[in-house]
């Protein structure tokens, strides 16, 4: 059997138990439930502070109707950021590399923004299909193009997250293998490659947080159009 670098993304199963269940259930131990106190410990204070900052950032541009989505979108943000960051630890499984999970969130949430828009303000929602100031002969073509771009959104949302995380993990594994193989042969090159690996890991930490944020941001933008 050839070494296949994609094997790290197989949904792991141990003794018949799908371990993705553990990967999805255990990270929330890191988020303790705040007690009914005025001042909590440092961890809870920090988490509460970042939650309130994120909520403020994301929902200030939205009008009142969009604020109903705050719980949902902030929960999704915590979900994605924790899963992404924990996946960077060695030997952990990242559920967000699974296309199934990302599409499972992208499609229903995008569809919900579209349905909310079409139900509450159908004219405005359909009006988004034609940008202002389009020259008359271009109108049919542009409506088709905008409709295609509308339907590609959930696909792009899901695949963007999957691809970014999968590519990152793959690169880390590739370069780590290179360092490991080079160490007995050419130690200097191995050390240089190890520094590349270090920088790459820092990049991946950033990517993990950014990609989760981008997911939420785009959903809030789609919401902004429709609410």
């Amino acid at each position, binding site marked *: 059997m050839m070494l296949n670098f*994609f*094997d790290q*993304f*197989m*949904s792991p199963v141990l003794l018949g138990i*799908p371990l*993705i*269940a553990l990967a*999805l*259930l255990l990270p*929330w131990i890191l*988020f303790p*439930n*705040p007690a*009914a106190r*005025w001042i909590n410990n440092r961890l*809870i204070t920090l*988490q*509460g502070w970042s*939650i*309130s900052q994120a909520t403020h950032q994301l929902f200030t541009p939205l009008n009142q109707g969009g604020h109903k989505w705050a*719980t*949902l979108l*902030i*929960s*999704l943000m*915590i*979900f994605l950021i924790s899963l992404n960051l924990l996946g960077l630890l060695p030997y952990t499984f990242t*559920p967000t*590399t*699974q*296309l*199934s*999970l990302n599409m*499972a*969130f992208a499609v229903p949430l995008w569809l919900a923004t579209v349905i909310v828009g079409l139900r509450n303000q159908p004219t405005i929602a359909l009006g988004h299909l034609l940008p202002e100031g389009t020259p008359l002969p271009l109108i049919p073509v542009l409506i088709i193009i905008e409709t295609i771009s509308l339907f590609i959104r959930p696909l792009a949302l899901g695949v963007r997250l*999957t691809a970014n995380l*999968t590519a990152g993990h793959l690169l880390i594994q590739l370069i780590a293998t290179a360092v490991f193989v080079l160490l007995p042969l050419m130690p200097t090159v191995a050390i240089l490659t190890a520094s590349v690996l270090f920088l790459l890991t820092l990049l991946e930490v950033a990517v993990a947080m950014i990609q989760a944020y981008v997911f939420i941001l785009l959903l809030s933008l789609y919401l902004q159009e429709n609410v």
Partner: protein
Amino acid sequence: MPQLNPAPWLSILVFSWFVFLFVIPPKVLNHSFMNEPAPQSAEKPKFNPWNWPWY
């Protein structure tokens, strides 16, 4: 690519939505935020007393 194997897709969908709907929001909603402490000013703010009847 093993992610494209459709076999676990439904169970992953169900399980991840279960966690997303029932595990995380209670934790997020339990965070409560205090008002900023305001310095006590020397003069009390002027106010109009209640002068209309209970309905």
